[in-house]
């Protein structure tokens, strides 16, 4: 047994902190989060670790105005599907931009944030959120 969240967070650190997913060398498809089996190639697939570059664009998004307790301090917050340059999509919050300025197609990059706390005395889960590329991200 483990305290709530501990092992669940720990075993995903590589993906959460550094964007490690995988890539099937047979069909050249990228996966994030890493998949145990390539759904295209199955037993013919050959999956190898791949660190995503952390750059992409917003595919779709929403502004969350009603959220569970652990996200209340952030309301209203932006959550989006980000299409990474490698072609894979993932779900993450978008920060460092006002809700009214978010657009489909907006260029974003991964940054490092607190994702969730398992209560005030519990473990803190860190990982990726995305922010628009701009001067302070070294993209202008």
């Amino acid at each position, binding site marked *: 047994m483990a305290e709530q969240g501990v092992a669940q967070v720990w075993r995903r650190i590589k993906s959460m902190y550094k964007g490690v997913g995988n890539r099937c060398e047979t069909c050249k498809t990228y996966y994030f989060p890493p998949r145990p089996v390539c759904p295209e190639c199955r037993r013919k697939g050959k999956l190898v670790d791949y660190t995503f570059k952390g750059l992409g664009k917003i595919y779709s998004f929403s502004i969350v105005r009603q959220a569970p307790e652990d996200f209340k301090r952030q309301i209203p917050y932006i959550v989006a599907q980000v299409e990474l340059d490698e072609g894979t999509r993932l779900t993450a919050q978008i920060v460092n931009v006002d809700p009214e300025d978010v657009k489909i197609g907006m260029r974003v990059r991964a940054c490092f944030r607190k994702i969730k706390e398992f209560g005030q005395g519990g473990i803190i889960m860190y990982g990726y959120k995305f922010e628009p590329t701009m*001067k302070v991200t*070294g993209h202008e």
Partner: protein
Amino acid sequence: MVGIVGYGVYVPRYRIKTTDIAEVWGDFSGTIGKGLGVFEKSVPGPDEDVATISVEAARNAVKRAQIDPRDIEAVYVGSESHPYAVKPTGTIVAEAIGCTHDMTCADLEFACKAGTAGIQMAMGLVKSKMIKIGLAIGADTAQGRPGDALEYSAAAGGAAYLIGTKNPLATINETVSFTTDTPDFWRREGEDYPSHGARFTGEPAYFRHVEAGAKSLLKKTKTTIDDYDYFVFHMPNGKFPVAMGAQLGVPKEKLEDSLVVRQIGNTYSGSAMMGLARVLDIAKAGSTIFMVAYGSGAGSDAFSITVEEAIEERRGEVPTVDDYIGRKTYVNYATYAKFRRKIKALG
């Protein structure tokens, strides 16, 4: 020779004006901020803390250094607001920037000089050839008790320095410290906000220690104030470093460039290191820098630094201190209170 092979900073996006804080406590005169020399301060977002600030600053430092993060063999994070009371911030940083697991790491605390203590420790390990490159970070999300004088200056930000010998951007010629037991500022275990000795934090604490550190460094390096182009002192507010400079006979213009406190407040462990980064962002090769960090409790770390040629080609790729200072969104006191966990019902 040992030096800075890379550096990077991070300042959160949000700011609150000190006049807005003053008005909450009934002062509409606009004099408090002016008196402190702090006009606005940085505020971390609800999902930012010392770990996230440190990672962002460290990623900038690694990018500027153009090194393989696997060559970093020591990580020290200095802060008085580590997210965990027990459990290191440094391990989060090391893992996030891609260090190997074969390295040493620890969190440090010495009020506002925990970051420079990390630089000294990294220097020792590099000089003794125990490690190739060490990472020292000073970062804080400082809190002042609502209504207290500290609330006007306690800010968030961090600076990361990579210490090594290969192709340094600036050489660290010498460092000295001055340490006594002086309880000018503290936070007891389990307390949300720090306490301080009010006017006691000045003369017997900040001024005595910074002056002693400065004089000791001048003596050891056989240099005078005139031998330096830039000065950086710890900035608990906008007034203290200026008064210190005047006392030591530093020309105003040699101090001016480091005074980031006016726009972002006191980033505690990040304070002097942020001022130094501001100078490194603009100083020409060959310039000399004199820095004294101060930590309550109390002690000072003084550094003599020479800027090297290599620095110029590393500019432009990585955001500067000014880029971060310029990137800002103002929040009102209510939002600030929400972000900073000053609203109790939200936990």
